């Protein structure tokens, strides 16, 4: 059953604040936070000049693709990490990401565009600190921008 579009800004703010807390918690972590394999995550860079010119479909494809990649990376990290408290932390992060995916779905971000866009840029990471920093910046940036536009009453 399709969700009605979710535009309550407080929901994303909670996810973003929790992402920031987890990112800060990982900052000093070194050895136990190195991953045994390289994970591919979305590049979080957003150029506002370019974003404004992008059509809604291309924005949706970038956000949806990035979200899927990031979710898979967090899930993989959860399974790779030996420390149970870190693993649990990553489990909560994964759970939050599933909620974000549903919010994006409520705005039809998952609809295939007519022309497949160029794959969004990615980077390879190998530490938890970097993973959680990417997570934090992806939510604050692309996801929140996409939702801000999707929730405006005027059409683009």
């Amino acid at each position, binding site marked *: 059953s399709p969700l009605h579009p*979710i535009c309550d800004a407080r929901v994303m703010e909670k996810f973003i604040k929790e992402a920031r807390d987890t990112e800060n918690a990982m900052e000093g972590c070194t050895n136990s936070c190195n991953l045994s394999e390289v994970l591919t995550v979305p590049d979080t860079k957003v150029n506002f000049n370019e974003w404004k010119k992008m059509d809604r479909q291309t924005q949706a494809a970038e956000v949806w693709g990035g979200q899927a990649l990031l979710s898979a990376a967090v899930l993989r990290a959860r399974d790779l990490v030996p420390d149970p408290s870190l693993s649990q932390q990553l489990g909560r992060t994964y*759970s939050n990401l599933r909620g974000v995916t549903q919010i994006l779905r*409520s705005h039809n971000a998952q609809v295939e565009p007519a022309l497949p866009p160029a794959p969004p840029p990615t980077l390879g990471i190998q530490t938890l600190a970097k993973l959680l920093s990417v997570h934090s910046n992806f939510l604050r940036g692309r996801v929140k921008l996409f939702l801000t536009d999707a929730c405006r009453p005027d059409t683009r």
Partner: protein
Amino acid sequence: QEGAGPDNGFNIQAALLLGEEPLDPKCFTRCLEDLTCFWESSSPPSATEYGFFYVVEGDAPQRCNLSVARTPWNSTRFTCIFPPQDTPSFTPLHVGAYTGNSSNIVHARTIMVNQVVLLDPPSNLTARATESPGQLTVSWQPPSLRYLESSLRYEVAFAPEGAERQMVDIPDGRTECLILNLRGRTRYALAVRVKPDGVSYSGYWSAWSAPVTVVT
């Protein structure tokens, strides 16, 4: 596995849900990172014959180990405590209870974790008379639900000793209010409870806070 928190705390929550939620199994989360489902039966089949399954939409079905306990009101309660990674918000979650080898489904529901929130009651309720007669300023601490304080609504109940109680609604997450037009020089009892505001998060009224009494 034991029920969430000390057994008595769980009994209180179960009692609240038994009152408010007609469907089975009854499910609730206390802080959005946990999920508990349960149902009660006065004359259950042999406990070992019940099973519980759940499907987070998009995942494979999972089973959950049920814990069995006797309630203070002489029924049997079957409880599933979800693993923390299977409690995503805004995601349809299909849950069900069956007897036999999943052939006979006894209860089935689809819920969303963000819609079955049952919080701890507010704490540190204080009420003071003000300079104006017949007025009370009331304030309290919110339950600890990180980053969602503004998505809560409260209900304050107040009554003069022995009389009918009245309620006042406090929206927008505010944790204080001013009650006017009360009888002067009367002892009042007050209590407060909390619930998500229903916009993105919804659920059930919490238990009432510990009451306080004050003279206007």
